[in-house]
C-alpha cells in the first residue's frame, strides 16, 4: 500500500473517532474542549458577585428577584488544544514495512481524530514542528533514517495532548524521555509499535546480527532455542521498564503489534480498534 493510500485510509477510518479529551481542563483558542476559564459554552461553571463593568446579560435575574443581590452566571470555556504527535524517525522504525506503515498510519489517524475534536494537530519529528497545512506533506515525506532516541521537538506554548509513536527500543531506557514528554503535557500517550519478528524472532542457525541503527556493530550468534529464549526474557524486561516508566508519569501506554510485511486494510482496522480499546481515541 502506498503512503498516500495509507494516509487517506487513515483519514477515512478516523471519521467516527476523535481524540479523547483530557481529564484536566485545558487552555487554548476556542474549541470543543472544556477550558480552565470561563467561556461561552452551555456548561454551567459557577456564580460570582456582579462587579461593575460585567456584562448585564449574564446577570442571574431570577436570583436577583429572590435575593436582591446581583450575581453573574459563569459558563465553562470551550478551547481547542494542541495535539502533538511525536514520531520516532529512527531507522529501526523502518526495519520492517509493517512497522513503518503502522507509524505513518497511526500519525495520520490521530491527526484526523484531533481535527475531528477541533484540536490543532502538530507533527513533531526530527526536531521540527509541522502544523496546519504542513502536517500532511511532512508526514508523507517522513524518512526513517535517524539514530535511536525520542524526538526533541521545539516546545510549543501551552500544555498539549502528546502522543509518542515509537518502538521504544532504546538501550538506555525510556524513563528520561517519558519524563520530559510528560512534564509539560496535559496528557501523554506513548504508542509502542513492535513488529512480529521483534516479538518472536523466527531466525535459527548461525547469524551475524547487526543493528540497523549502529553501523559496524555486529554480533555472531548461534540462534538456538536458548539464545532466543534469552532474547525473549530481555525484551520482556525492557517492555516492563517501558510500561513502568509510562505508569510513573501517568501516561497511558498503548502497545500495538504489527506484521513484518506491509499492512492491509484489516491490519489498519485492528490498529484503530486497539487505540479505541485503550481509550486513546473515543467515538464521537
Amino acid at each position, binding site marked *: 500500500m502506498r503512503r498516500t493510500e495509507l494516509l487517506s485510509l487513515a483519514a477515512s477510518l478516523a471519521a467516527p473517532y476523535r481524540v479523547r479529551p483530557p481529564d484536566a481542563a485545558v487552555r487554548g483558542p476556542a474549541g470543543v474542549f472544556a477550558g480552565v476559564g470561563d467561556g461561552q459554552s452551555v456548561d454551567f461553571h459557577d456564580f460570582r458577585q456582579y462587579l461593575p463593568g460585567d456584562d448585564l446579560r449574564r446577570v442571574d435575574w431570577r436570583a436577583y428577584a429572590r435575593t436582591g443581590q446581583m450575581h453573574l452566571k459563569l459558563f465553562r470555556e470551550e478551547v481547542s488544544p494542541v495535539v502533538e504527535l511525536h514520531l520516532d524517525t529512527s531507522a529501526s522504525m523502518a526495519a520492517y514495512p509493517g512497522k513503518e506503515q503502522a507509524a505513518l498510519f497511526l500519525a495520520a489517524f490521530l491527526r484526523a481524530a484531533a481535527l475531528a475534536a477541533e484540536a490543532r494537530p502538530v507533527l513533531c519529528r526530527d526536531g521540527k514542528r509541522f502544523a496546519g497545512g504542513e502536517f500532511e506533506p511532512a508526514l508523507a515525506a517522513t524518512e526513517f533514517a535517524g539514530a535511536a532516541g525520542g524526538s526533541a521537538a521545539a516546545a510549543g506554548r501551552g500544555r498539549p495532548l502528546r502522543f509518542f509513536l515509537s518502538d521504544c527500543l532504546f538501550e538506555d531506557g525510556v524513563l528520561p524521555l517519558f519524563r520530559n514528554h510528560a512534564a509539560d503535557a496535559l496528557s501523554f500517550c506513548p504508542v509502542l509499535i513492535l513488529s512480529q519478528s521483534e516479538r518472536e524472532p523466527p531466525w535459527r542457525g*548461525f547469524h*551475524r546480527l*547487526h543493528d540497523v541503527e549502529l553501523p559496524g556493530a555486529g554480533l555472531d550468534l548461534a540462534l538456538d532455542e536458548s539464545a532466543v529464549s*534469552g532474547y525473549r526474557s530481555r*525484551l520482556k524486561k525492557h517492555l516492563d521498564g517501558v510500561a513502568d516508566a509510562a505508569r510513573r508519569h501517568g501516561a497511558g501506554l498503548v502497545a500495538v503489534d504489527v506484521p513484518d510485511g506491509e499492512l492491509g486494510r484489516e491490519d489498519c482496522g485492528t490498529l484503530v480498534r486497539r487505540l479505541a480499546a485503550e481509550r486513546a481515541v473515543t467515538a464521537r
Partner: protein
Amino acid sequence: MSGFFLANPGGLWALAALAAVAVLYLFYRRHRPQAVTGLFLWGVPRLGTAGGRRPEPPRLGRALLLDLAAAALFALALAGPAWRSASGGRVAIVLDDSFSMRARNCRAEAAKLAGRLLAEAESGGAAILLAGETPSVLAGPGADSAELRRALDGYLPSAEKADLQAAVNLARDLYGAAPSVRVITNRDDGLPVAAGGDLAVHVLPGRGGNVALTRLWRERDAGEAGRETLTLAAANYSDSAADVALRIELWKQAASGEVFSERMHLAPGKTEFAEIRLSSMEKEILLVRLAAPPETDVIADDSLAFVPPVPDRTVTYGVKDLGGETARFFRLGLEAAGCLPVPAAPDGGAAAPDLSVTGNPEVRGRALTLRIPKPSEPGVFAPPLVVDLASPFCRDVDLAGIPWVAADRNIPAAPERIFVLAGDTPLFWQTAPGLLDCNLWPERSRMVREPAWPAFCANLAAAAADRLPGLGATLYRPRDILRRRPETGAESQAIRLFAGPDEVASSPSGREFALPANAGLYELRGPEGVRHLAVLPFYGKASDTANLARTERVVVSEGMREEGGPGAADLTWLALLPGLFALGLNWRLGRK
C-alpha cells in the same frame, strides 16, 4: 595374529580433508547477516569489521569439531578398518614363485603386500614360503623381523610353475596347527583351498603373457675365423595357452640402430633357443632386446641383455665417445646384465671398483674397463658378491679349477660370503675365512641368492634329510653342518629343535639328539646369532589332514585390497555410522 588392521591404508590420505574443513571454516563466513532493531537485546554487542570482510579466525566450536570428527571418521571408513581374529599368532605368507610374477611389477607388489602383512602380524611366528614347482621356505617361523625383511628383499620368482596348494600344505605342516595363511599370487585359477586355519588369497593383477630372455652366450666360432655365434634362449612363462611371437633385435654400440632381427615363436611353458651367427664384432658391445606384442610382458631384467665381447679377465673397450646415446647404451646394457654395479653416469673418475672409465691413449679416446675380481686384489670382494657362472661375464671362468676362488683359500679381508652359482644352481659358496666344503645336491636346491640365507639353509637341510634313513630313531648330527662354521664357536653350545614356535628337543652338548617321531618341519636353532641352522621339511609324508579343520571359504581379492578372510571382520560401518551421526548432529544443531 589378531588385532585391528586397515585393509586399505591408502584411504587415510582422506585425512587431508580435515585440513580442507579447517580452511573452509577459516575463510567461509558461516554466519548469515541479519538486521535487527535492538542488538542490545541479544547480548553484549561487539564491533564488527568496518573495512569490509576479512578472514575470520577459525571457530573451534561445536560445529567445527563435529565436522572434523565426521571427516576423520569417513577417512577411517575409507581405509577399511577390520579386525582379524586370533589364529594362534601364526601367519604364513605364501609367495607365488612362478616366473610370471616378474611381470607387470607383480614381484614388487607382492613383496610390498607381504611386507604389510608381516607388519600386521604379531612379532615373531611368521614365515615366508615360496610356491614353486616344489614349495620351499624362504624364512622360517623362528625368524625375527629383520630376517623376514631380508628374506623378502631376496624374493625373486624363478620357478616355471607354482604349486600353491603344496605351499599351503607346507605352511600347515610347518606350524603343526591351524595357521593363518596368506597367499599372494597373480593367478586366478587353481587357487588353493584351506585345510585348517584361515586362508586368504591375494590375487594381484598382472596375469598374461610372460616372456623372458633366460640365457645368452657369445662365443668365437672355432671353425671359422672372424665369425662368432650368439646363442640365446627365451622362455614363455605365459599362463595362457597361446604362442607368443617375438622379434629378437640385436643392437651394437656404434650403430645408431638395429643391426639384426629375427622372429621367434614361443609355445607356453617351452624354452626356445636361437643361434645367430655374426661376423666377428669382437670389439663391439652388443645389446639384445626381445620385442614382444603389447599384450605380452617381457621380463624387464632379461629382455635387455648386455653382451660384452668375448670376454677376458680384464677387457678394455675403446670408446670414441661416451656421451649421449653411447653412455645410455652402456648403462642399459650393464643394468640388464645385472651382475655388476653400474655407475649412474660413466664419466671419468666416478666409476665403481669393477667398472672404471679412464682415459686411454692407446685407443685415442676414453676407455671403459671391466674388471672381473681377482684374489690378488684384496678389497674387491664387496659383500655380498654373487658370481653367476651362467652370466656372459663368466663364460671363460674355469669351472673345474675356479682358479681365483678355490685355488687360493687365504683371501685376506674377505667378505662374509661368496656364492658361486651356475644360473640358479649354487655350485660353491665360501664363508670367510675358511671354505666350507659342502657337497650340495643341486637337483634339490633351487636357490635364491644371498639375501635369502634362511631359505638357503632350509633347502640345504632338506637335502640332508633325504639322506637320513628313516625318521624318529635317527640321530641327527648338526655338527656335520656346523663343523666348518667358525661363528658357532665351541661344540658344547646348546642346540635346540623347534616345531614352529615350540621347542621339541634340545641338545645341551650340541652334539646330537633324537628327532621327534612326528613328521613335520622343524627348525634348528644354535647359539645366539645363528638361528637358522637348518629346517627339516618332511612335508607330504605323514601329515594327518583328517584332524585339520577345513576352512569355510577362500577369499579371493583383487589387487592390494584385502576383502577380509575367514578370520577378518569388516569394521567399516563402525567408522561410517558415527561419521554420519556427527554430520547429522551438526546439521541439526545448525538448523535450530
